[in-house]
């Protein structure tokens, strides 16, 4: 811990709290029917997402299939952008066209996955390849969920990166036990970082709930990649919830979603009593954990904490207000933007 200055520790705390506060607002907006689709919260995954992103330099590139609001914030994305994105408002970065968990903005080093578990691993190998052949020093960082390891995409991407010794770091999130886990990747029970040694690259496991541990391990992997030593893989155990338990939670806390999206199938919309992950005190919450750590080690005085939380509250309040004022996208020309200069986009109706 000695290697982290107080400023850094406070910044990390700021991002964790900013995320939590933002996601509480997202949950509120979702309950009020103001999000366009699903509820994108990352409870239990914040330490991983922040620890992996924080050591990135400006020129580095991130693609995450793991919920990553924390990572986006740490990359300089504003709460306003994230809010309008999930509310699908006009001023959002995609203009309401996309609803993924990540943005694509190359100037900020962000590549958006396609909502396939590992297609972005190959794409990020390409990002890393471009650094190698152009003698640039960016590193590509790809975050995946563990079930991605069963996909051919994952292997094709990692194999290419390994063949060419590319500056790619892959972080695999592993969540607490999934009752169907034995069906996913063989042999069951083996750690992923162990099985991926077959690719002849360094692999390691970290506690994904501990932001400082993640940060240090990812930083070392990035450095290694940057100086030409090739790709590596990190497995991180988090307290995150699987998408399925998330979905159950959401349907449970917000019966209205069953009316709005009946296709999602809430058979017992009346349950209504369950809590969202971050409302659940059972959770081994990485945000609380880091807060306790800072206080215990006398790295954050009450006044400092108060100041940080005040900044969080102010920014979120301001951005929520602005986001709620943002109009929906204009639907005049649904077909522009498919090709460069909008070439050859046929109209919808026969004239």
């Amino acid at each position: 811990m000695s290697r982290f200055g107080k400023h850094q520790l406070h910044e990390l705390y700021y991002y964790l709290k900013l995320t939590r506060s933002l996601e509480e607002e997202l949950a509120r907006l979702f309950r009020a029917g103001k999000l366009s689709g699903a509820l994108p919260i990352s409870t239990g995954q914040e330490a991983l997402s922040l620890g992996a992103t924080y050591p990135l330099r400006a020129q580095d590139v991130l693609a995450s299939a793991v919920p990553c609001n924390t990572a986006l914030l740490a990359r300089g994305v504003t709460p306003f952008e994230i809010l309008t994105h999930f509310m699908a408002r006009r001023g959002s970065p995609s203009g309401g066209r996309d609803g993924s968990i990540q943005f694509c903005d190359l100037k900020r080093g962000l590549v958006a996955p396609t909502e396939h578990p590992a297609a972005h691993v190959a794409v990020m190998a390409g990002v890393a390849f471009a650094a190698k052949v152009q003698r640039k020093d960016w590193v590509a960082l790809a975050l995946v969920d563990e079930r991605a390891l069963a996909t051919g995409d994952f292997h094709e991407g990692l194999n290419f990166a390994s063949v060419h010794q590319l500056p790619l770091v892959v972080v695999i999130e592993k969540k607490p036990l999934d009752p169907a886990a034995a069906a996913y990747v063989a042999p069951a029970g083996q750690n992923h970082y162990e099985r991926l040694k077959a690719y002849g690259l360094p692999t390691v496991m970290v506690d994904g709930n501990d932001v400082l541990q993640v940060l240090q391990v990812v930083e070392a992997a990035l450095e290694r990649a940057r100086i030409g030593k090739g790709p590596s893989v990190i497995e991180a155990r988090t307290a995150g919830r699987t998408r399925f338990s998330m979905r159950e939670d959401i349907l449970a806390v917000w019966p209205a979603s069953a009316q709005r999206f009946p296709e999602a199938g809430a058979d017992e919309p009346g349950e209504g009593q369950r809590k969202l992950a971050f409302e659940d005190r059972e959770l081994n919450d990485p945000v609380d954990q880091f807060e306790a750590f800072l206080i215990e080690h006398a790295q954050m005085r009450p006044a400092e904490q108060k100041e940080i939380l005040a900044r969080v509250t102010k920014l979120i309040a301001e951005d929520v207000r602005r986001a709620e004022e943002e109009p929906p996208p204009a639907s005049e020309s649904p077909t522009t933007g498919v090709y460069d200069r909008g070439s050859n986009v046929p109209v919808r109706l026969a004239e």
Partner: protein
Amino acid sequence: MAEITYLEAIREAMWEEMERDPRVLLLGEDIGVYGGAFKVTQGFLERFGRERVIDTPISEEGFTGVAIGAAYMGLRPIVEFQFIDFIANAFNMITNFAAKSRYRWGVGVPLVLRGPTGGGVRAGPFHSQNPEMHFVHTPGIKVVVPATVHDAKGLMKAAIRDEDPVLYLEHKYLYRRIKEELPREDFVVPLGQAIVRRTGSDIVLITYGAMLYVALEAASSLEREGIDLEVIDLRSLVPLDRETILASVRRVNKVMILHEDTRTGGMAGEISALINEEAFEDLDGPILRITAPDTPVPYSAELEDAFIPQVADVIDAARRLAAY
């Protein structure tokens, strides 16, 4: 008898076929322990056990291959794509292995590929697609698109009993939005039979899937202004029921084709060409296509509503064609 939903009809069809025929089994992501992302298969694991309800790894190409191998060896697998969009990941296996097997070697692949299609539920570019044309254009696959609760059940049973690979496209928007009371006895809706859902004398509107409801609503509205639509629900895209289409065209003489899928290279083009070839003399006006534009499916409600053909779009087109 109680009314059941479209989703329940799919589930009942699979359930009854699994009871009837021990060779039928299910493969897909999260279909067992979790009962499926849309809960279509809830309770199946408990009833039929782990060897007939298989939670697969995320590997669409791989488990589709597994299903082909199992079909070769006497089983009749039903493969679920959690969202039909992910059929893109099994494209090679379906179009090259499954589709060409009978032609190459006379060895059929009795296999059902199913999953939720289409938009309207604000699910964005990767969970809202309509992939039918990739398979309509692949000789060796059959493609069905039930629009009603009755057809959802009857086409699923026909698909399971068929000796060829059948792509069964269920529209997620319909899952819990439509209900119907079904016959108690076993029935199938044979593949390759379209149905006239509404007879009319001014314009034939040919459609399929969830667009049927847009078509019928437009037809009711147009009736009030004296434009009388005949509405055909194709139900099967392959085999295509040319007879039903051509019979209506020959009687009614004006045609519109409506689908949720994008325009260029869509089914409407194929049907338009067919009608032009086979019934050119019978046409009293151009064949109009009403489709989504050539873009990915947008996420926001406003953009998606502008993307998916609406009742007003059908009404506009019908007025133009009626005046022709």
